[in-house]
């Protein structure tokens, strides 16, 4: 929550005294930096900021933040954060999770936190691998992936976290990547502003167990043609010379096209505020993995009642109706009789 009276802070204020223990070169560093550089901008207070995580490399994040924090158990951070956010609406509650933590063991808590629209900001560090346990495939690993647990290749279709979140009624969904600090900061800022559950998928390189997973789209010379930057209200064009665009396909869907082949009216205008998540979903399906042109930015951002404040509203309403609880009256609310 933006707090007008919050004293100005610098990145250093948000840095804890614990040594950062990720592998040298890990994408997690730049995400940490983005968060630590953003928070001073947000006008928030350290003491009102909490990072809750599960287990994984990503999940060590809270230790490095000079805020309140909890490094909980594998997959359960969204549930714990929900309890915290509901009971303490005065706090900014962030969840940091990995693709295994959030989408494998924690998938159920994630989708429920999203539909519940509780006011938490979820950063999903997607490196398409289990880092901490040293390199098994994850729910976002591409099919056929050879890892320690799949020496002959993995067999499942990966989740697309954006699609899954939209299918789970998420009111704010965005995607960014660890190579673009500015974009990350913008996405985190937007997610933080959102009242309700927000999910930011961050493509994050694990240079030890899955190096180069996002090379195809994030290599310096690949970005222009492979990152489809979504901007609300703008026609979706991309490529170094905007030579590519996203157009409708005439049967209720969207496709990537050459701008020259398509009339301007047929180019999709991005509408992150559409109540209906269908367009956002369609955009999320443009690429089936980070190898072909892939949208980044805010897919969906709609206002819906936030869970915690509604819980509080019910409490306030009950108090205003019945007065704040009278214990003696409660105990006598059933049939009573007196023995004399």
């Amino acid at each position, binding site marked *: 929550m933006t707090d007008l009276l919050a004293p100005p802070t610098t990145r250093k204020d948000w840095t*804890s005294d*614990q040594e950062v223990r990720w592998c040298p070169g890990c994408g997690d560093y730049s995400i940490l930096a983005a968060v630590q550089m953003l928070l001073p901008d947000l006008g928030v*207070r*350290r*003491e*009102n*900021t*909490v990072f*809750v995580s599960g287990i994984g490399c990503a999940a060590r994040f*809270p*230790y490095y*933040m*000079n*805020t*309140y*924090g*909890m*490094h*909980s*158990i594998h997959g*359960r951070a969204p*549930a*714990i*954060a*929900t*309890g*915290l*956010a*509901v*009971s*303490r609406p*005065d*706090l900014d509650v962030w969840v940091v999770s990995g693709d295994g933590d959030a989408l494998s063991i924690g998938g*159920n*808590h994630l989708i*429920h936190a999203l539909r519940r629209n509780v006011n938490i900001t979820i950063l999903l560090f997607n490196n398409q691998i289990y880092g901490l346990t040293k390199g098994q495939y994850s729910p976002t690993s591409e099919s056929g992936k050879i890892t320690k647990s799949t020496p002959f290749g993995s067999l499942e279709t990966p989740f697309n976290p954006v699609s899954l979140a939209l299918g789970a009624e998420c009111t704010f969904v965005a995607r960014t990547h660890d190579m673009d600090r500015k974009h990350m900061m913008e996405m985190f800022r937007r997610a933080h502003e959102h009242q309700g559950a927000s999910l930011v998928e961050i493509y994050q390189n694990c240079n030890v167990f899955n190096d180069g997973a996002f090379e195809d789209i994030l290599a310096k010379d690949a970005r222009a043609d492979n990152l489809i930057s979504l901007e609300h209200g703008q026609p979706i064009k991309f490529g170094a010379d905007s030579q590519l665009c996203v157009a409708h396909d005439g049967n209720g869907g969207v496709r990537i096209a050459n701008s020259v082949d398509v009339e301007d009216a047929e180019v999709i205008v991005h509408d992150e505020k559409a109540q209906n998540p269908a367009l956002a979903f369609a955009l999320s399906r443009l690429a089936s993995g980070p190898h072909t042109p892939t949208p980044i930015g805010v897919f969906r951002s709609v206002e819906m009642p936030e869970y915690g404040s509604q*819980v*509080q509203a*019910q*409490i306030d*309403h*009950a*108090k205003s*109706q*019945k*007065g*704040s*609880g009278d*214990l*003696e009256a*409660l*105990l*006598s609310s*059933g*049939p*009573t*009789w*007196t*023995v*004399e």
Partner: protein
Amino acid sequence: MIEDSSVVIRFAGDSGDGMQVAGDRFTNSSAIFGNDLSTFPDFPAEIRAPAGTLPGVSAFQVHISDHDIVTPGDAPDVLVAMNPAALRANLGLLRPGATLIVNSDAFDERNLAKAGYSENPLEGDLRDRFQLFEVPMTTLTIEATKPTGAKPRDAERSKNFFALGLISWMYSRPLGTTLEWIESKFKAKPALVQVNSLAFKAGVNFGETAELFGSPHSVKPAKLPKGKYTSVTGNTALAWGLVAASKLANTPMLLGSYPITPASDILHELSKHKNFGIATIQAEDEIAGIGTAIGAAFGGHIGVTTTSGPGMDLKSEAMGLAVNLELPLIIIDIQRGGPSTGLPTKSEQSDLLMALYGRHGESPVPVIAASSPSDCFNCAIEAVRIAVTCRTPVILLSDGYLANGSEPWLLPQVDSIPAIKVEYASGHNGTDANGEPIFLPYLRDEETLARPWAPPGVPGLEHRIGGLEKENETGNVSYDPANHELMVRLRAEKVERLARDIPPIEVNDPDEASALVLGWGSTYGAITAAVRRLRAQGRSVAQAHLRHLNPFPADLGKVLGNYEKVVIPEMNLGQLSKLIRAEYLVDAIGINQVNGQPFKVHALESAIEPHL
């Protein structure tokens, strides 16, 4: 008027017949009339069985008395059976010569077949063995309610009130209570008020005029301690205890729970009392239930989670986290028949060892257990008190029998319940290497070994906690072997020190017996009754009942040492016995029953007797 000193009545019928309502109303007017009483609702499994079949039978047993009683009674004196299945399922329970009132309308061929009777039992020797009354309740109810214009199919539904009326007459219950209840309950549907009232009155009148039943009986009010009473089930008392604890601690409460029989009613009850500042979350599963409670505890609220056996399994990993976080947390397990899905509506005490050891690693947690429906109120407060004082998860055990059973409860003086002191960390409590003031989240209270409770929001107290082993005092992650050993032992010691605050065991031993009957949990009533009977026969026997299962009261070893024999009745295969044997090397003798039912007093009596 025939005066009885006590009577056990069992209402039995199909799940759809409203027997729980009838029993409940009878209980109620008896309570208000001033009897002591104890009830035992005996549900079928959660799902409805086909009408008229044995699995569909639902019963409610109530024991009313003019003196202090502690169980719903072993063998009913009166059975109301609304159909052949209800008769068949309950006949075996009756004492010889009991009164048997059947709805004769229901004894048609179809229903007899459904109950598995090849012949109509009413035509057999029942009449010789019992005082049998055949009452065409359906017909009489329809008849009586005709004036309202109710369709027979609808009117028929009120036959439980007819039965209630009849029994109310038979035991001279005041009628007003029931009529008022009907009035207020069905306020929204005046037609139902009419039909139900007429059916009830018809039952009363039938008793009065039919000249079938002889004189009505009476059971005088009991001489109970003076004061204001109510009648509560264990689950309601538990919910109220939680509300009270939140109030006593002056701290908001959050319940995170997932529905499960027989614990769901606590969620239902608590969700009504939002005006006490209580938030309830129906979570996506039991793990999220405890997860949200942990989140709330971290936020400085009282985090509670309620469940039954299968849910306890699922919560175990998160409990271990709470042990490591050293945060207050209340975990309530309403035990039911296990293992696995087991017998969801039946009662058992088989989760004790799980409560103590059901987590990986050395993961000690205080465990307490309620011994009667109203004791659930006290135990809820006690659980919160321990959790908050000691910064630890606490497990409170109840069971299906307590959850749904009820008893009169002398309402406590609310003001006289000691407040629960909640102290949050408010400032720095240590210095770093350079002498700068810092906050040490794992600096311990010398007395209790509790660490500070430091919810977010206080500048300068920012800190991170987690499930990895932590350095004592600083709370930083530590892989140091000696520190781990220290922390393992500190966490154990913290729980053990609670024994200092546990009052000495109250041993009831009027005549220096050589055998002690030791119990815990819901068997309190049955054990007490059995002990009374044994004493009435001149046998000397001592009795003690444990509320604290971990740690044990400090004087337990000494007490056990005073007796030649220690007999431990339990509704499991000997779980407390195992703990007592291991701790005190006492050759405890178990009396074990695991059939989903509470102990029968007479069975317990005869099982204890040989050891005296």
